[in-house]
């Protein structure tokens, strides 16, 4: 049985029917991980720990206490701290770091216990590779080697959740957690032919998520289908009093509309009747590759065929979202990364004459080039004399961007566009020019700035590489986004394609 071709829903059924055990599933995926090292999707794998968790899951099932996700394996992006596995955020700065606590996301999805009665009982396969400290769009910024795209090993997998996406695309894990600060779930999902969702800011606890940019970071699933994402997101999202920015009303069944029609009055053949889909002019202008534009428009047409109406909308500050993001995110990051000083944990340099040298050498040796670049940008925009012109100005434009979305949402129920300007590029193509890399984030950044939920849904191919279309919803409309994506996936099969490189 090719379990790696099964969706979460299928795995859950099989476990329930006792067709397979958690132990067998865990062993199955661990074997694939063992032979699938070429993708470099994982940073830490600990088979003993995984099998221990699987055995627990089987015991829970035998006792009749299994939930829907009990015993299903998953990979966690290495940005989530874990007690059992190492946590590095793909940085030399945290090489060998052992966290004394689990991230909230890891707890929520992990084994239930006395201190953690709400655990969903999933089995952790290991920690997924990523761009260092979540800074990057290609997973070329990992201190432990880049992640290869299972669709074409000469191409990037996307970032920063490249490892999570590659793991799922290569059949090494049925689903994975990722984080999205400027597109880091949606973009690797798009480049790897997967479905991913970044929920509204505040839906998922950031406790235990190694911080990059606090007001932008959000965790979410990367999987094969919208249905799978709904299952995982429902389990991940809850109010956590340890995170002051965690919203009080977070527990929801995000899959509750999956099989419903958009409108109660809709005919069966056109379940999306009544849905107004907005296409921003700025998302379909220069810079977008023809192949991508074509597939995304076809995606929009498919929604139309399902009953939706297409409307033209405008998001005038789309281009400006790039400087705004690349002022605010580095600013927060420069501060969040100050704790990495070699004093209490993490890398400490070997030779130093005094404290100042210890700080500088430890941080210089521990951080990669992109991280250092962003720290420099961030410190600069916060520094005396520049704060008003850069940081505050960016925050004001941020408000305009959020307001512009509301204007658009007055005319439509969700916004549709590309995720990336082009399909996965070759290694090294953009890594010499950081600005080029930043410019490619143009379609995803504004949703993080506004805190809106957004998804990437596979919608076609170009040059044999996957293309994702982006669906952006208004605040707290994740269930609706997933509904539209699911209906789309009932009518199409892009999400079912498998990379030929993967056995």
């Amino acid at each position, binding site marked *: 049985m090719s379990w790696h071709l099964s969706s979460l829903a299928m795995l859950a059924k099989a476990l329930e029917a006792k067709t397979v055990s958690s132990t067998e599933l865990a062993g199955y995926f661990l074997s694939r991980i063992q032979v699938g090292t070429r993708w470099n999707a994982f940073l830490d794998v600990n088979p003993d720990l995984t099998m221990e968790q699987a055995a627990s899951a089987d015991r829970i099932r035998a006792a009749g206490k299994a939930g829907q996700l009990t015993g299903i394996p998953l990979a966690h992006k290495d940005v989530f*701290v874990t007690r059992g596995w190492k946590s590095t955020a793909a940085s030399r700065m945290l090489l060998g770091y052992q966290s004394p606590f689990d991230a909230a996301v890891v707890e929520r999805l992990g084994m239930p216990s006395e201190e953690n009665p709400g655990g969903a009982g999933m089995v952790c396969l290991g920690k997924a590779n990523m761009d260092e400290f979540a800074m990057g769009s290609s997973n070329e910024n990992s201190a432990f080697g880049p992640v290869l795209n299972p669709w074409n090993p000469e191409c990037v997998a996307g970032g920063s959740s490249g490892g999570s996406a590659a793991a799922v695309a290569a059949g090494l894990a049925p689903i994975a957690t990722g984080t999205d600060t400027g597109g880091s779930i949606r973009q690797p999902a798009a480049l790897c032919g997967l479905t991913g969702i970044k929920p509204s800011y505040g839906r998922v606890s950031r406790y235990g998520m190694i911080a990059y940019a606090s007001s932008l970071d959000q965790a979410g699933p990367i999987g094969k289908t919208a249905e799978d994402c709904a299952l995982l997101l429902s389990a991940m999202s809850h109010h956590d009093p340890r995170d002051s920015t965690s919203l009080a009303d977070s527990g929801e069944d995000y899959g509750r509309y999956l099989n419903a029609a958009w409108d109660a009055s809709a005919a069966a053949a056109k379940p999306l009747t009544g849905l107004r889909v907005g296409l921003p002019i700025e998302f379909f202008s220069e810079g977008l590759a023809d192949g991508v534009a074509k597939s995304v428009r076809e995606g929009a047409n498919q929604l139309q065929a399902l009953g939706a109406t297409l409307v033209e909308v405008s998001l005038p500050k789309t281009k400006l979202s790039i400087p705004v993001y690349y002022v605010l995110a580095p600013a927060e990051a420069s*501060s969040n990364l100050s*704790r990495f000083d070699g004093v209490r944990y993490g890398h400490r340099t070997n030779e*130093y004459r005094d404290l100042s040298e210890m700080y500088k050498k430890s941080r210089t040796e521990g951080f990669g080039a992109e991280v250092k670049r962003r720290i420099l940008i961030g410190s600069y925009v916060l520094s005396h004399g520049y704060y008003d012109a850069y940081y505050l100005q960016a925050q004001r434009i941020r408000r305009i961007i959020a307001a512009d979305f509301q204007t658009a949402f007055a005319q439509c129920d969700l916004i549709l566009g590309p995720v990336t300007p082009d399909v996965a590029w070759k290694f090294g193509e953009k890594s010499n020019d950081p600005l080029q890399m930043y410019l490619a984030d143009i379609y995803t950044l504004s949703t993080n700035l506004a805190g809106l939920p957004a998804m990437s849904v596979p919608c076609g191919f170009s040059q044999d590489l996957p293309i994702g279309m982006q669906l952006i919803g208004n605040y707290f409309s994740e269930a609706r986004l997933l509904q539209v994506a699911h209906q789309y996936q009932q009518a199409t099969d892009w999400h079912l394609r498998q990379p030929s490189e993967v056995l």
Partner: protein
Amino acid sequence: MQWEVVIGLETHTQLRTASKIFSGASTQFGADVNTQACPVDLALPGVLPVLNRQAVEHAIRFGLAIGAAIAPVSIFARKNYFYPDLPKGYQISQYEIPVVLGGHLEIVVGDTTKVIELTRAHLEEDAGKSVHEDFIGPHGEPSSGIDLNRAGTPLLEIVTEPVMRSAAEAVAYAKTLHSLVVWLGVCDGNMQEGSFRCDANVSVRPLGQEAFGTRCEIKNLNSFRFLEEAIQYEVRRQIELIEDGGTVVQETRLYDPDKQETRSMRSKEDAQDYRYFPDPDLLPLVIDEVWIESIRSTMPALPAQLKQQWQDDFGLSLYDAELLTQDRATATLFEELLTILGKPLAKAAANWMTGDFASTLNRAGMSAADSPLNAAHLAPLLSRMADGTISNKIAKDIFADLWKEALDGQLKSTVDSIIESKGLKQISDSGELGALIDQVMQTNSAFVDEFRAGKEKAFNALVGQVMKASQGKANPQQVNELLRKKLS
């Protein structure tokens, strides 16, 4: 050249909370190193801050007590700098919009009263501690030990306008502020444990000049004496420097109590750019009127208020009123006694508390808060004195007995039970007293003769004899009256 001294004080008060401002670790002083530093305090990857309600309440309480404005919305900001006792590489503080704005405190220096304007007070977290013992690092380098138990302790930083003009004023302000925060229960005031630390901003200018001179900040003064000495030294230093043709450099200095001088801190402050920005992990602190009112309604009356009130209502002297409002426990005890005894006994209660009670506490090295006897135990003493059952002298003995019993943890007696068991009831019956007096007059005829011969002192001696014969139980006023009658 006449110089004017300009001083502003910034005081860091540790707030009385059980747990830290942003984490659930304990704030108790004296714990074993790093046993009260949880992942949030250690700034481990992935941790986040959550605000302690009690810390905010203390800030509100303080703001109300000094007549300040409580900000309906205030913002936490990050103050970014690197130091080993600062785990996150930034301190969570408040910058542009603090929780308390304005306010004032009245101080007394000698005979003059002065109102000190406060600029603001804001919430922030304390840093850890460096211990400079002889640690050796992994490469043989001389090292400091970092203890982060203190990291995250809630602080209220209280800032004055630069309106003090002498070290004496600064000390008077610091003492008044200290009493107030202890009175309010907002800070325990333990300066040796670092609960109350002052930074003094000192500058000088020629008398009459409007512009301020360059100021220096003297940090971490944790005793009133050091505060005074440091300011005095610094003023002298700056004046001498300028008179010698030099200029004062704006810098941070530390006070060395052994050498009794201030010295520059090694370049910690050179062009420090703290890059303040609102902390994205914390939402705006919202304080509504309902909350403020609920705190206002449970605030204790302030010492200044009570002092005036008790002088007005009960005719207490300023001296007594001051003694009774020296700390919350003393004032509370007085109030509780009044509740039990009624206002007519206010003066008697005040006299007793500032007399026998105070001296007993002093001898025992205790404050009213430590007293093993409470108002319920003590009130009968005063009522029995008032109704004539016992004399003041007997009351002293009874109090001593009760005190000893209570200290030993064996308090079983009450005022009445002691009066009963020891037969200490005051003799006020004129018949009984008359008989006693007759007896004494008979056995002390020498005194009687002396008195009749004009020696007033003999009268007192006779009274003394009567008291002795009655084992102190005779009602002294009545004895006086009756004896005079019999002798005339």
